[in-house]
Structure formats: C-alpha cells, structure tokens
C-alpha cells in the first residue's frame, strides 16, 4: 500500500542523524519535524531567518513576527536564534546545513530537479529552493511517485524548468526509497505491500535493482 504524506515524512525522519541542522521545505517536508526520533537532537532552519523552529503555537498565541518559510506561525526551541535573510543564506550556501528536504514536480536520474514553474500555467517563483539545492550537502526529495494523472515524476529528463542540476541525492516517495547514483536511480526500499514491478512501472527511467528489495520499516 502506498504511503500517505505522513508515511513519507516518517520514512524521511529515519534519515536524520543526531546533531543535524536541517532545512525542511513547504508541504510534506514540513511534516518530517513531527517524526524526529525521541532523544535525537536535530535543529530545524527556516530560511526566512530562524534556527531552532519549535512546534506550532498554542491556540491564541500565534505571533505575526514569528513565522516559517511557508509563512505559517511557529514557535522556537531553547537555543534558537534569529537573523536576516543574507545571513540565513550564508548558512545555506556555505554548507552549514546538513540536510535539505524539499518537494518536486520532477526529479531525474542525474539528480536534476524541477519544482518552481509550469510555463504558461503557474509561476510562483523559486523562493529559496535554488539556493538550497545548489548548496546543501545532502538533498532528499519528498514526493508522490506519480502526478495526479498517473505520470511518472521520476524521469530521465525534466520537462519543466529546472531548479537545480546534479543535486538530489535521494528520493522518498509514497512507493519507494530511491538513491541517485552514478548509474541512475537505484531502488533501496519499497513501501509496505508495494511490489518492485509496480515501482518499475511507475518510474520514468531505468531502475538499478540489486537483489532483494526490503520493505520500508516505518
């Protein structure tokens, strides 16, 4: 059975390591914060100028000056800090963030990603996504395996304008965990009950499949 949004977030949370500074994009990535393993020290960065994002505020306690990059009201953890946008991206561009998780329209087996523009239809802008993918040491894409019409989002080439090239390291979708290697997409895990055949069929580029593919443990 394919994973829901929370399932994808849970699986990505397994990629966290103690001491990581992490930037979570809007959408599914934001949910990852809910599944940080107990006792693990992870600090979340928000590119609008906050290190140490806490949970959403209690009802009635939202503060207009305290938002995340998705413009949602948040709180802070002990030891947080605020800073301006240029320092925030100095942090990102300078490689001080250990992991970036973001969504995508398309990802290729070379690690290219498109996520910000559908020509003629939708242009919201790239926000900080281009800076993040160009700089982060480790980039995981959180996405559904196919779009609303059932077309593969994992492909040999992006059809939409690119956000970055050769940057994505791993994809966690509702169906599979896939690593991007020199040989292209490599299937690491499949969602519980999902067959290798289904993943192959719904992936728009060849998959490297080495031996038995385990089910995700979530």
């Amino acid at each position: 059975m394919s994973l829901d949004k929370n399932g994808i977030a849970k699986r990505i949370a397994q990629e966290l390591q103690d001491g990581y500074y992490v930037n979570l994009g809007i959408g599914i990535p934001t949910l990852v914060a809910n599944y940080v393993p107990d006792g693990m020290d992870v600090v979340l960065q928000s590119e609008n100028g906050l290190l140490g994002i806490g949970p959403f505020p209690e009802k009635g306690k939202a503060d207009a000056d305290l938002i995340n990059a998705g413009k949602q009201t948040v709180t802070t953890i002990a030891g947080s800090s605020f800073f301006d946008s240029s320092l925030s991206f100095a942090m990102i561009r300078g490689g001080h963030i250990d992991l970036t998780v973001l969504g995508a329209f398309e990802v290729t087996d070379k690690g290219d990603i498109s996520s910000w523009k559908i020509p003629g239809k939708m242009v919201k802008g790239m926000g900080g996504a281009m800076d993040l993918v160009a700089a982060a040491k480790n980039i995981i894409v959180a996405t559904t395996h196919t779009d609303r019409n059932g077309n593969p989002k994992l492909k040999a080439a992006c059809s939409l304008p690119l956000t970055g090239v050769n940057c994505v390291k791993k994809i966690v979708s509702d169906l599979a965990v896939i690593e991007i290697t020199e040989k292209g997409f490599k299937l690491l895990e499949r969602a519980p009950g999902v067959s290798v055949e289904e993943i192959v069929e719904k992936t728009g580029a060849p998959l490297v499949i080495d031996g038995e593919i385990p089910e995700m443990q979530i």
Partner: protein
Amino acid sequence: MNKVVKDASEAIKGMESGQTLMLGGFGLCGIPENTIKALVASELKDLTCISNNAGVDNFGLGALLRKHQIKKMVSSYVGENKEFERQMLSGELEVDLVPQGTLAERIRAGGAGIPAFYVPAGYGTEVGEGKESREFNGKMHLLEHALTADFAVIKAWKGDAMGNLIFRETANNFNQPMAMAGKITIAEVEELVPAGELDPNQIHTPGVFVQRIFQGVDYEKRIEFETVRE
C-alpha cells in the same frame, strides 16, 4: 544626528515615479505597513520594486499592484497573489524572479560596495541564462551583480533618533540587508526612542545606513497562515 521625520508621507518626500524601491518583509511579516499605505495614497507610478514577495491581493505590495503603480517586480516568490499572477501572465507587469539567497546577497552587496560575486544557485537553470559562469572548487557558479535602490523602505521593531535599528524575530528578514542598499533608507519602527537608549551591542542596523526614521501607527501585522497546535 536627528533623522526623525513625522510620518510616512513626510518620509517618502522626494520619491519620484520611475524610481527603484526596495521594500522589506517576508510575506506579510516585517513589511513597512505605514510607508506602503503612503505609497498607495501617492500618485507615484512606474515603480520598480525589489521585494522578496509581493504581498497578498489586498495588503502589502498587493495594494500597490492593484493600483498599477508598479512597472516591474524583482522578487523570489510571488505566490499568494492572484492579481500579481494575472498582471504577470498578461504582460502588464515585468517580473524578474531571483533565487532568494541570491536576492538577499545582491542587496547586501549593493550596500557593501561589492559590485559582483559568484554563487552556485541557479547554474544550469533559466536563471543562469545569459550570465557569466565559472568553476570554483570543482563546481559551477554564476556571476551575480549588486542591487541598489533610490529608496529602501524597511520596518524595524525599535529604532532611535540616529537611525539605529533592532529587529524582532523573523520580522528581520530582508529589512536588514535592504537598509544598507538604499541611497535613501526610510525606516519605520514600532517604537522610536531617543539616541542612547538602545544597547550598542544589540544594534542590528547601525544608524549610518538610515536617513529617515519614524514611529509607525496602527500596525495590523496580518498573519498569512495562522497555524496552531492540535
């Protein structure tokens, strides 16, 4: 060195149609509400506005857009604004989309006298088209140029008569770098105090960057997405 002006309409004196403005804020967080209202009330038009976002339909820069006072926007993210999208797709509005970190750094560079610098963001994408690129440390980078403005319009939490500013929480965002990059920088603050009352160790923006300052009134501080714990 007293830089205090009475209000937003005094602060924007000398601004002319066709000029370039920087406007601080991230979404609706930390936007110069008073000065934006004064701009909307003015006859200024053909403005080029450098601002991370474009407000929402009826608030922030969105209000300037609706009045067609903006000729060109330089931004990184312009969602949350249908009128913006309409003007952009119809070609009424010129739009230059810039990666957010590159935008912040180009603004800081404008204030810091650095005419150009290299960043990796955007290489291999349409952002890199027509730009010089170069390899450093085995990675391709784009040459990006500084941005400055005739006026920078920003919002701080506290300020003093000499123009020293302190920002609050994530309402800092683009306000701090923009303060550096305006030929004339207008700062509106929630609390204006006499020089000497702010701790000199805690100043985010030293007064040298600010030419006009006033205490704003009636801050709405709208929240775009009020999210709460379940």
